[in-house]
């Protein structure tokens, strides 16, 4: 970069002078949390010198405890897909509370188009529609799910951008509407017995594959495309974005649509993984998705953060959940501790902004 590394009058471009990316802080936190669990495994009297991440009993070929590593990432992968979309919404200084119920509603709708006609030679006892909707190619439920997500996202975005409803209120309303849709779709009955193709979407480590590939795609989009730049610009200074000729309303609607489509896809993956769809699915998912973004360094004030941060935030949440189970902490304590950690992350974020300003 010799052509740009020096300029006149102290005008410079120097890659090495770039500031410490905030993602490193999250990575550091991740390492510290892992170390803490390793130490707890040695120190706690009932743990008998276990290791959190390492393979101490020679069960695996690698030096790591592969089963635990898989569980850590698998249990956050589906919520992680939602978090990729919620991150974009939060970067525009908005919020999306409707994603959890949207997961349930899409799971119900998608699976009703992904059922198999015969179960052990008998008609599917959980059939929603007639035989015309049975054994359809898997693209049908996926396209229907994405279309439904886009529709819900467009409504969210339209209320927020055109009618100036605060994002919190608009998506809180949609939260209830989507949970209602999930219950109404099959009158509260679970939908089961999907086709093999449908099941394959959520089989084994497939949720992780979806999560990581979507993360890479959206990282590239946020970093290298006009869409990404305008998303950051709107969250940073909406007025400036408008004055610069960016169509802020249209862009916001697009962001909410993409977020809802990601949540809808998460619904498909979740129902495929569980081989069933139930109206109560996805409880607290919206809150965990927001937590992943916030822990990953995405500022609720907008304009700051990255998809890499969100992926790391998801890993932090996964490690903490897994770690609590590892030290045999009761589920109720886990929720309390997780709440405390989320609040701590926000406090840290505000502190970071204050020392910068």
């Amino acid at each position, binding site marked *: 970069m010799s052509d740009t590394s020096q*300029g006149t009058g102290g*005008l*410079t471009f120097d890659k090495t002078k770039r500031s410490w990316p905030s993602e490193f802080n999250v990575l550091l936190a991740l390492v510290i949390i892992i170390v803490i669990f390793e130490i707890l495994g040695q120190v706690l009297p009932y743990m008998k010198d276990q290791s959190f991440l390492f393979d101490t009993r020679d069960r695996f070929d690698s030096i790591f405890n592969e089963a635990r590593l898989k569980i850590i990432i698998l249990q956050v992968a589906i919520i992680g897909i939602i978090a990729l979309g919620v991150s974009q919404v939060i970067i525009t200084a908005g919020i999306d509370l409707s994603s959890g119920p949207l997961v349930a509603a899409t799971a119900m709708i998608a699976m009703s188009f992904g059922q198999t006609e015969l179960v052990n030679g008998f008609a599917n006892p959980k059939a929603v529609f007639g035989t015309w909707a049975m054994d359809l190619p898997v693209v049908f439920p996926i396209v229907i799910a994405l279309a439904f997500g886009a529709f819900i996202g467009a409504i969210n975005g339209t209320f927020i951008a055109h009618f100036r409803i605060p994002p919190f209120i608009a998506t809180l309303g949609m939260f209830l509407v989507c949970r209602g849709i999930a219950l109404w779709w099959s009158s509260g009955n679970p939908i089961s017995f999907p086709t093999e193709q449908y099941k394959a979407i959520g089989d084994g480590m497939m949720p992780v594959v979806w999560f990581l590939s979507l993360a890479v795609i959206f990282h590239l989009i946020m970093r290298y495309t006009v869409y990404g730049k305008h998303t950051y610009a709107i969250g940073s200074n909406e007025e400036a*974005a408008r004055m610069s000729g960016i169509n802020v309303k249209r862009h916001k609607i697009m962001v909410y649509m993409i977020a809802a489509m990601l949540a809808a896809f998460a619904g498909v993956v979740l129902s495929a993984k569980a081989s069933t769809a139930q109206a109560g699915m996805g409880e607290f998912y919206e809150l965990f998705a927001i937590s992943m973004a916030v822990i990953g360094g995405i500022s609720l004030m907008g304009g700051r953060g990255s998809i890499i941060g969100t992926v790391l935030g998801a890993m932090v949440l996964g490690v903490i959940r897994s770690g609590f189970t590892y030290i045999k902490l009761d589920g109720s304590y886990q929720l309390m501790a997780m709440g405390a950690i989320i609040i701590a992350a926000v406090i840290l974020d505000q502190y970071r902004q204050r020392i910068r300003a």
Partner: protein
Amino acid sequence: MGDELVLKTIDLTKHYGGVHALEGANFELRKGEHVAIMGDNGAGKSTFVRQITGVEQRTHGTVIFDGKEVAFSSPIQARESGIETVFQTLALADHLDVPDNLFLGREKTRFNWLGPFRLLDYKGMRKDTMAALEKTGVKIPNIHNTIEKMSGGQRQCVAIARTASFSSKLTIMDEPTAALGVQETVQVENIIRQLKEQGESLILVSHNMRQVFDLVDRIVVFRRGKICANLDIKDGSYTAEDVVTYITGAKTGAEY
């Protein structure tokens, strides 16, 4: 430079309910001319600027820009027609760096068939940013710092460089140095001199008498929503005291 008119307003008037903020303003600006607008607080300076740049809609009157009668419905429309404005509240995105801000809303891109997902040409924008900043003589330690890490003066310089780096027919600056220190003010004034050399037309709203006398060809004084004086200061026939008498209303221009 010639005597070609860039901007002409006839009987430009703005009422806010019963408040007559601007009353029958007749204003002319020739190509390459730098004109200062002065006046007390509430004299109608900013109101005048807002009517020209499409931020607000005038009550009545005519605006002729670049030979055509215009009625901008938004600042974006005004910008597209060639009026660049540096507002008192800077229109910069704090979390983005200098090239991002310079090119916000008009990014250089590749693979345009990708629509909203077309790729940003970071290298091209960086090169153009360096060229634009060099042209204006702005000193910024590292253009990849985000705006939030910069001083008020550096921010103002970026905002003005943004204006200056796109060929415009008219530049309007609303008190560009009001919040700046001495050094930073000098830098902004240098940019304005550069614009003069390049033959760009400029309207400068300012309270700073020394600055105005240093920089512009003509002073237009507003008082109580009306233009009360039009003073050509190039030949030195007016002093700062004269201007003050017009601003305070002790005297009114002969033609008004």
